[in-house]
């Protein structure tokens, strides 16, 4: 393998750690799992650096790797927690001592996003936050564009309703 490519990938990882973590958290709903997923993603990316196509976006390639690791591990393990664990709404919460006013509102929105079905949550993150086009999201998700649109519409409808209820 080209050592130059490996160095490029390795050097480029750091800029994307936070966004990879946010994606991993959206998928897994657990902060420690998110960190493990990011670590696994980075190591696999370095290992497979020769598969990265120079001139394409490193972050998109990393997202695809992260998603594939998550899916494989999810499928491999059918034991799942029954209760007593965080739901995604809690896991996505913005916490910390510096909870300023904007974050209180962010926390409310995140709670609503955390309560969405996981497929909707992932699609919302990819399109509205990470800037994937419908086509790009469909490709990553392995789903038709119409499915991407339906998930986004359903998520918008729920988030709109939640917001209206809160204001009422």
């Amino acid at each position: 393998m080209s050592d130059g490519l490996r160095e490029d990938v390795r050097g480029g990882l750091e800029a994307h750690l936070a966004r990879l973590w946010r994606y991993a958290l959206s998928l897994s709903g657990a902060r420690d799992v998110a960190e493990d997923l990011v670590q696994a993603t980075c190591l696999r990316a370095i290992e497979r650096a020769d598969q990265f196509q120079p001139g394409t976006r490193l972050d998109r390639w990393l997202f695809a790797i992260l998603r594939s690791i998550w899916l494989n591990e999810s499928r491999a393990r059918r034991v799942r927690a029954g209760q007593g664990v965080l739901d995604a709404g809690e896991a996505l919460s913005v916490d910390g001592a510096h909870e300023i006013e904007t974050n209180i509102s962010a926390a409310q929105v995140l709670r609503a996003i955390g309560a969405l079905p996981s497929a909707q949550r992932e699609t919302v993150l990819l399109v509205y936050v990470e800037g994937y086009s419908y086509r790009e999201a469909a490709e990553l998700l392995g789903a038709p564009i119409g499915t991407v649109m339906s998930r986004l519409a359903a998520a918008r409808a729920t988030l709109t309703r939640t917001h209206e209820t809160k204001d009422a």
Partner: protein
Amino acid sequence: MATSEDDDRKLTAYLDGELEEAKRVALEARLAADPSLRARLEAMHAAADRTRAAFAALLKTAPVADMRSRLESALAAAPARAATPRRRVVAIAVAVAIVAFAAGLGAGRWSVGAGGERAERDDWRQAVVEYMALYTPESFGEAPSPRLGEELASLSRRLGAPLDVDRLKVDDLSPRRAELLQYDGAPLGQIGYLDGATPVAFCILRDGEPDEALATSSRDGFAFASWAQGGRGFMLIGKIPVERLMAFARSLKEKTG
């Protein structure tokens, strides 16, 4: 406000700049003529912005320094090709974490026919063996859980089996924590013990399996005892001598049967 899902899809694609030309023109004509559709568009408009703002706030809480130093130490430990062994460790860590988080869709239970039941029954025990390999003495806490009584009461309800601290105390082993997992949709209770510094777990799956006598076996360095009665499968597992494990298993079987 009542609008159809189809309209929501169109409005969403319109807001996202993803509606194809002909449909966009048609929708704009309807919007011009229909105030309630316009109101719906305006209401839905803000959702994406609020989502972006919320996720931006979340991004600020990312543990970047931790992740960076973890990655650097992993890479420094074996610069060229550490991927294989480390990947396995990480994969297992992810797998275990998944145990602690309900994710994804549940496959139908017992989807295989009667011939597959035996294999299904062994599957959950194999899954327990796999995640037991990751437990350390710390996994079961420095001290017994202060909420142990409640945890056991909750397990008793879900598993339909009488479980309390007295019943679960065998010889010199005392339960330290109890938690509810699930396997293929069936409640799986786990009670954690420490034998000295060695984690030992007592697992109960309420899955309707037929009665089976107590038997011991070993796998991957673990001794384990399994039996089934009253529609529940039981398993005791730990890296302790098989005779010792068998003695605990006999007492537990008697007290929880």
